[in-house]
């Protein structure tokens, strides 16, 4: 007998994963400025899908989300990625692919965030160079990872038997689109990435409100810094 439960379980896990992340975001709270910035970044990432919708596979969204995660961190990266997927589908059409796109682009943002974290811990001259090439290779890899995540539910639901052979056959069908996606991502990071990182870093600094040190009458110096 063909087993269809895996499809349901995978969908439940995906939806629960997205739901718990958004619940955490609700409880964490964020400033209106941060919300507006995330919404704008998500809109830019989502908008970049529309002109390229005619070219199957070519999606600058992945590269934009990766860079957003790299500059702003893993959690904003996930938010930008998942929000870009959901809202752009309001214009392109929601489908069974929506939760998987939200997860795939969200995880691309998390991945960018982890690289950004690693860069901050690194010291020395090669820091910029290493992180740039790491980003290019990661962007290339994400072209294929994105395809693998999106094909996963299709494989679980519509293909039988669920073996490595059948999964690879499913991946093989979309390999050309994934390759276009991967090469496009790598080229976007290579040619536009550096400038975009500079631009976003400048806006990230503007989000950080720093108070000037205040010297009290007793000579004690008090420093203030907070994110707003």
């Amino acid at each position, binding site marked *: 007998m063909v087993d269809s439960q895996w499809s349901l379980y995978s969908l439940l896990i995906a939806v629960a994963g997205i739901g718990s992340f958004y619940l955490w975001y609700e409880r964490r709270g964020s400033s209106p400025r941060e*919300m*507006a910035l995330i919404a*704008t970044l998500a809109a*830019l990432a989502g908008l970049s899908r529309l002109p390229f919708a005619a070219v199957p596979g070519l999606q600058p969204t992945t590269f934009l989300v990766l860079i957003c995660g790299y500059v702003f961190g893993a959690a904003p990266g996930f*938010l930008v990625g998942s929000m870009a997927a959901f*809202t752009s589908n309001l214009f392109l059409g929601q489908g069974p692919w929506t939760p998987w796109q939200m997860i795939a682009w969200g995880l691309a943002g998390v991945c960018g965030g982890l690289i950004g974290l690693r860069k901050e811990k690194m010291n020395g001259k090669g820091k910029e160079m290493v992180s740039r090439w790491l980003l290019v290779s990661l962007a290339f890899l994400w072209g294929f990872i994105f395809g693998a995540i999106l094909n996963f539910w299709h494989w679980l639901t519509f293909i039988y038997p669920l073996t490595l052979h059948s999964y690879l056959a499913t991946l093989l069908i979309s390999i050309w689109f994934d390759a276009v996606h991967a090469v496009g991502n790598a080229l976007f990071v290579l040619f536009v990435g550096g400038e975009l990182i500079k631009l976003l870093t400048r806006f990230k600094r503007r989000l950080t409100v720093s108070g000037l040190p205040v010297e009290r009458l007793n000579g004690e110096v008090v420093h203030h810094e907070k994110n707003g």
Partner: protein
Amino acid sequence: MFIYKPREIFLQSLQTLSICTYLLVIVGGAVLLFHPLVLLALLLPLVLALAAAGGLAQWRKSLKYFLIMIFLSMIINITVNKMGATVLWLGPVLPFFGRFIITLESLFFGLVMGCRLLIVFSAFILYNLVLNPDRALFAFAKIFPRSAMLVALTAKTIPYLGQQMQRAAEIQQCRGINYYRGNLANRINNRLPLIKVLFLSALEDSFNLGESIQARAYGSGSRSCYFRSSPRPRDYFVLSASLGAALLLLWLLLKGEGSFQFFPRMRVLILSGGQVAAMVYICLLLLVPVLLSWGWSKWDYLKWKI
């Protein structure tokens, strides 16, 4: 710009919960059960609901792309599945996948999987046609207020940025820059400054937007509510019919009569009278919104009453 276009049709007048439950029962049924007759009982009302929503033309248009996907997944099923007993063709040996064998069972299984895929895709076409994103967001905002605000902001910003981009491109074109001539590298080079300007102005605007949200005292109290929508009889009808169909689908699933044995040999299609009755009732229950929609457009009294 949304795919959803407001029209004076019955299915768009339903509450988010009713229409979502209806679609969820159809998609859930197609994902969990793969008896060919159950799938037909789901597909028939769905196609009629699409016709009632005036979406048959769009469905046919989308079908061209979906049929390619359906065909490809049928090919995968036929290629990797060697469990059937009735061999129709013994093909060449393929690297990694072994001998290419087409069996009657895998062919039929591929067709049934294609039908499931068609149901899922069609259900989402109906979703895009009849579910108002604003109303869906309103329901969603009760549990996730901040995230709903983010969705609303993002959805508002996408068309705005599109217009900004268009405007900036037209200004540049007046200055003699051509985005549509030359080789690909030239076209990309011409567009890059435009994209940079769009990014800068959008990010700058986002700070103004944030300040404007703060100035309107966002988060200082409970959410403002500008309209209330209460369920009407039509919602109760659709909701009850959908839940009835869901119960029957669950009954078939638990009884094991919602699945079908494809391998190694196909078993008989109909196992019991109860199975056929359940399938007919599922089809009839899922036809309730279609019948109501027909009555709604033809009979003013019913329209007023529900």
